[in-house]
């Protein structure tokens, strides 16, 4: 794919008179091919026109930029001609003079006669020969827009930018002009970006429809491919089998955004006070190497530095205890497994939806799949060996332990098994056991293997009970593992505290990824109130080479415990969407029809960005690019349902609209 225009991570921040600033656009990344027709759609105020102006060069991006044919756009120019919303014809010039003004200026090098015939040709193209000598004041809206289009096309722009070109026209005129524009664009192979409000217009004209979320921090919510073959006609496109599916998808997106806008409008705004709303916090954690950032934040004074007087780290017995602790408000915040905030928000099991916010990923990787040493003795070295053993012993169902059904361990173990043709619900038995009981259960032969974080794999290896058949670096390097989770209500009541908490932990994460600090952190983790295990089971992977217990020489795994580097901490929405697909795949939660809304509310990139900016760290979210795990199956963030359909081993996928504020409205009605 040759990229013609690249909108490269564009931010647009407007300074406000009171000294603060308004982030209109956040991290817009879009690559456009030559000849492509792109529509930008979204509610008013989402920054569509601002984005168009940035591409035109009329406005400047606060960060990032626009690259046209390998060169950065620095100022407006005729290669990016704009058809303005209100035509912008000069009222003192006739139709001919308006177009001639553009042609004469841009095509100075041509002889006069040629320029004249270009003007004439384009007036004929839009069918305005009879109005050549008229001034704009004497023309109807449709005719004016035709003049504006003729003016834009006459100077042969590389890129045509249209800002709601047909917004002010009646339906009949609009229809005719749309077809005319389409025809002209197809003939002259011009690349177009159009801002519009009109769903049908977007579908008729575009190759891709880019849907922008509401401001502030407006970003690309979804991109819809329009695979209707060209040439298109207005009457024919509606007959395309997927027309109404696509139309519904866009309208559903817009409705989600509308609901979100309403919610934000009614939300009580807490006036930021000087200082924090709460200075003593109870934070839940599970004894794992991954809890290092929390321990470091407390022991190395990062909590103190950011204004907390006392932070109690509450060692919890299981992930379920953490979930209920947050739900019952027993603890303020907690280390959570990656899928937990999403699962709780959707309403896992019988639970009511409880919006949980995660604005920080605490760690990536750090997990492994351990199987009982017996399998090793049977010659199991790979996934396919394991499948063979299962097939051979039909009479026995092997039991594998996971820590929580919404945890990355469960999702990854299942993904790993399924990609090897093992149905995790039929061919094996998966049970939930808290991490610290895994080794004991393996020893007691209650389970035959498990997927868990360290030190519980290394402990089994050290005690010669099991071997590591795969680490998560083998399956999905850089997977989100532990996140910071707080309830949305808590965030709304303690906005400053929340940001301070993110900042403290972000600095702690930074500290944890400094290799020279690792020995010190190891000492902290070994204390009984934290992980409390022997240093030699924490060391592998964390400091020392990783020993899989297979007799091979231990291997140095660079990124086994990743706390900060490589944009670890950003709770990106694309990986969130992947988690949603997997939760739905195994029937843990339904797949939310309003997945964009769910992701926007749970994975708060904006709050992460705010904290990161205050610490002068990068606040960039990873791009919305497709990615794949070890088996090569491509996950496209614009087509989650398609991805789910392509996975063979899965449950029946339930799609359900999750109404998050229903419970709240009910409470209000009752009180």
């Amino acid at each position, binding site marked *: 794919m040759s990229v013609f225009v690249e909108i490269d991570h564009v931010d647009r921040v407007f300074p406000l008179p009171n000294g603060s600033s308004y982030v209109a656009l956040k991290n817009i990344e879009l690559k456009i091919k030559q000849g492509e027709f792109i529509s930008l759609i979204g509610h008013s105020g989402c920054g569509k026109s601002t984005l168009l102006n940035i591409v035109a060069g009329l406005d400047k991006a606060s960060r990032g930029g626009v690259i046209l044919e390998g060169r950065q756009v620095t100022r*407006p120019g005729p290669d990016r001609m704009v058809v303005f919303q209100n035509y912008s014809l*000069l009222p*003192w010039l006739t139709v001919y003079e308006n177009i001639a003004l553009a042609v004469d200026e841009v095509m100075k090098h041509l002889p006069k006669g040629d320029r004249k015939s270009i003007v004439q040709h384009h007036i004929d193209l839009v069918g305005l020969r009879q109005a050549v000598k008229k001034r704009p*004041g004497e023309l109807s809206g449709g005719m004016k827009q035709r003049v504006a289009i003729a003016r834009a096309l006459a100077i042969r722009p590389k890129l045509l930018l249209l800002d709601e070109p047909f917004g002010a026209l009646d339906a009949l005129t609009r229809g005719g002009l749309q077809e005319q524009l389409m025809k002209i664009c197809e003939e002259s192979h011009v690349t177009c970006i159009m801002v519009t409000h009109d769903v049908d217009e977007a579908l008729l004209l575009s190759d891709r429809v880019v849907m922008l979320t509401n401001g502030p921090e407006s970003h690309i919510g979804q991109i819809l491919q329009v695979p209707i073959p060209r040439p298109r006609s207005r009457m024919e496109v509606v007959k395309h089998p997927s027309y109404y599916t696509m139309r519904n998808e866009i309208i559903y997106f817009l409705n989600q955004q509308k609901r979100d806008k309403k919610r934000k409008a009614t939300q009580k705004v807490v006036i930021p006070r000087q200082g924090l709303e709460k200075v003593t916090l109870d934070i839940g954690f599970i004894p794992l190497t991954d809890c290092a950032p929390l321990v470091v934040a407390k022991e190395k004074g990062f909590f103190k530095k950011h204004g907390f007087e006392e932070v109690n780290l509450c060692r919890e017995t299981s992930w379920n205890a953490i979930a209920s602790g947050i739900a019952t408000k027993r603890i303020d915040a907690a280390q959570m497994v990656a899928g937990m905030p999403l699962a709780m928000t959707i309403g896992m099991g019988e639970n009511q939806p409880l919006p949980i916010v995660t604005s920080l990923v605490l760690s990536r990787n750090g997990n492994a799949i351990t199987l009982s040493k017996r399998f090793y003795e049977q010659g199991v070295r790979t996934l396919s060996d394991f499948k063979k053993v299962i097939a051979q012993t039909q009479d026995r169902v092997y039991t594998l332990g996971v820590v929580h059904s919404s945890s990355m361990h469960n999702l990854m173990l299942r993904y790993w098994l399924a990609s090897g043709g093992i149905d995790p619900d039929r061919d094996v038995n998966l049970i939930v056991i808290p991490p610290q009981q895994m080794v004991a259960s393996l020893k007691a032969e209650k389970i035959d293997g498990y997927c868990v974080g360290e030190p519980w794999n290394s402990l089994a290896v050290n005690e010669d009970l099991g071997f590591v058949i795969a680490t998560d670096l083998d399956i999905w390097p850089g997977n989100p593992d532990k996140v910071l989770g707080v309830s949305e209500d808590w965030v709304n009541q303690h906005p400053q505290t929340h940001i301070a908490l993110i900042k403290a932990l972000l600095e702690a994460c930074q500290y944890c990824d400094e290799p020279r600090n690792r020995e010190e952190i190891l000492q902290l983790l070994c204390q009984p109130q934290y992980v409390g295990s022997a240093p030699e089971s924490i060391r592998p992977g964390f400091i020392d080479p990783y020993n899989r217990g297979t007799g091979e020489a231990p291997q140095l795994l660079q990124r086994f415990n990743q706390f900060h580097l490589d944009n670890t901490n950003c709770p990106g929405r694309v990986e969130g969407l992947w988690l949603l697909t997997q939760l739905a795949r195994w029937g843990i939660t339904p797949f939310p029809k309003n997945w964009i809304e769910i992701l926007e509310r749970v994975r708060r990139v904006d709050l992460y960005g705010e904290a990161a900016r205050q610490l002068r760290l990068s606040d960039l979210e990873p791009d919305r690019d497709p990615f794949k795990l070890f088996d090569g199956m491509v996950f496209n963030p614009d087509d989650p349902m398609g991805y789910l359909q392509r996975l063979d081993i899965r449950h029946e996928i339930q799609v359900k609209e999750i109404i998050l504020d229903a419970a709240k409205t009910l409470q209000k009605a009752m009180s």
Partner: protein
Amino acid sequence: MTARTARRPKSNKLPKFLTTFLQDKLAIIAPPLIAIAVFMVIWQLLCPPGSKGLPGPLQVLGETWDPYIIYPLFDNGGTDKGLGLQIFASLQRVGIGFSLASLAGIGLGILIGTNKVIYRALDPLFQVLRTIPPLAWLPISLAAFQQSNPSAIFVIFITSIWPIIINTTVGVQQIPQDYRNVAKVLRLSRQKYFLKILIPAAVPYIFTGLRIGIGLSWLAIIAAEMLVGGVGIGFFIWDAYNNSLLSQIILALVYVGVVGFLLDRIVSFAASKVVAEEQK
């Protein structure tokens, strides 16, 4: 006696003058004429012939009929000239002063309107200067020019330039962003931007400034001429006052009013020809 002679031409000529218009424009013409007539009657009643103080309209007409009304262009040398010549002399001064003010005002206005720094530097100064009454400039201009005619012209100039500058500045600043964007996208040369966008877009504002300016200069010239003397309608009024010729003053006032009105109309007529339909 004088009253009787004055009545005759009035009753003979006016109906003739009216009949040409009566057919089509009666509805527009009649009300102001009636208003004038009523005003005249009231005036005549308030100032009957023979009363002291102000003369009535009939008396005015009688006293000024010969030579001021029927011979507007007589010239007896010195300042003893017909009202037409007096007005012409005043108009000449206004013409020179106002033309200079227009040229300088539009030029300065465009400069200030296009350059923010210059705007910030000069705008407060202009806001103060424009409030200075025209006559306050006269002594300093007399001191500077040492001659009465250039001083009067300078007063015209300095009076009418402020509204022209300020309106032109606003006009240039108010050029719709859309037109500027068009110019930016097309990368119009400075010269073309100036001629095709800036000037046409600012023209309605410029003409507003010119209209205010011409009004003010006509106001100022009368006062200035009263003080500097010489031929001119202002001095004519002053001279008549010194000789207690109240009727002449009143007639001169009518002339001054009509000429001021015509000047305003001429400028606004010019504006209507120049400004495009959509900008109004």
